[in-house]
């Protein structure tokens, strides 16, 4: 009855072959990745397949790996099967120069704001998103603050003596 990680992996490999890669299990949670062009096909399979039924998108977020040339930005989907209480993590990687990823709003209505947030902080351009604009930061902001090339600190702070902290 219970859905095991091996079963999920088997199902995915059966359908997509060697297009899904990087299977690993951390703290009992299955994680895998694929090319970014495949993301909708994989997500659709995870939702619709009768035994998998990952119908709930827990979270959608970005990660910036500045040393991973050509694949700097990862988009991570956290999916949840509520009937079996199983969670999985699915990643796609994209180039930071042209971060285009297909939107998942057609599959999950909840992806709308999550994708806006990911756009807000990492600048991932979700192709086909109905309303892709900043959600959490001020509209005047002209950069993507969670990318590692930008400073974390607020540049308007005046009451700090930079000499004290070695920067």
């Amino acid at each position, binding site marked *: 009855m219970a859905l095991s990680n091996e079963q999920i992996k088997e199902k995915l490999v059966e359908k997509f072959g060697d297009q899904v890669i990087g299977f690993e299990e951390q703290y009992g949670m299955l994680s895998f990745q694929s090319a970014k062009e495949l993301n909708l096909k994989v997500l659709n399979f995870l939702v619709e397949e009768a035994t998998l039924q990952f*119908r709930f998108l827990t979270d959608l977020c970005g990660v910036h790996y500045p040393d991973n040339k050509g694949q700097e930005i990862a988009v991570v989907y956290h999916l949840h099967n*509520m*009937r079996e209480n199983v969670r999985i993590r699915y990643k796609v990687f994209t180039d930071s120069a042209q971060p285009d990823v297909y939107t998942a709003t057609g599959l999950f209505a909840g992806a709308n704001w999550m994708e806006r947030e990911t756009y807000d902080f990492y600048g991932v351009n979700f192709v086909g998103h109905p309303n892709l604009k900043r959600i959490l930061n001020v509209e005047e902001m002209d950069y993507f603050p969670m990318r590692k090339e930008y400073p974390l600190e607020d540049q308007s702070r005046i*009451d700090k003596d930079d000499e*004290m*902290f070695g920067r």
Partner: protein
Amino acid sequence: MSEPLTNRSKPVDRRPMNWVERLYLVNIFKGMAITLRHFFKKKATIKYPEETRPFSKVFRGLHILNRDEEGRERCTACGLCAVACPAEAITMEAAERQEGEEKLYREEKYAAKYEINMLRCIFCGYCEEACPKDAIYLSQTFTPANYQRKGFIYKKEDLLIPDPVTDPEGYQKALGTINREKEGV
């Protein structure tokens, strides 16, 4: 979707209230009884400026800069507290002790300037933990409010404890209950 998302949903009880429930009389008297009971209870209010509440002995309030038994400043301006400070509120300037200043400073190096920005400070106590010289501690005094930002830059003279040699009275006052706790009373 026709089938429920999970198998844990519970139906809501939407039966109409019966005649007694609709009168609300029982519930009104229950509420009045609770209100009435409070008339006879002890008053909870602490009249703050006149009477104060004792703070815990580990309460983290305003900082103090410590002196040793002879009244010499312990701080050597090593900067570990400034590095440990998550709010980056501490700044200091070090200076070398001159001949004849042995009565003022414990070691050869001392803090010529030591400032804490109390508006930035979050009273986490990391400075206290980081200090290798027992020089900075937090106290049970809360930081008072002020009208302007510059009133919150606490300089060395605002932080140093009274000198136990030259000002024993003030020192006893600052000591508070600590001595009794040391003896285990």
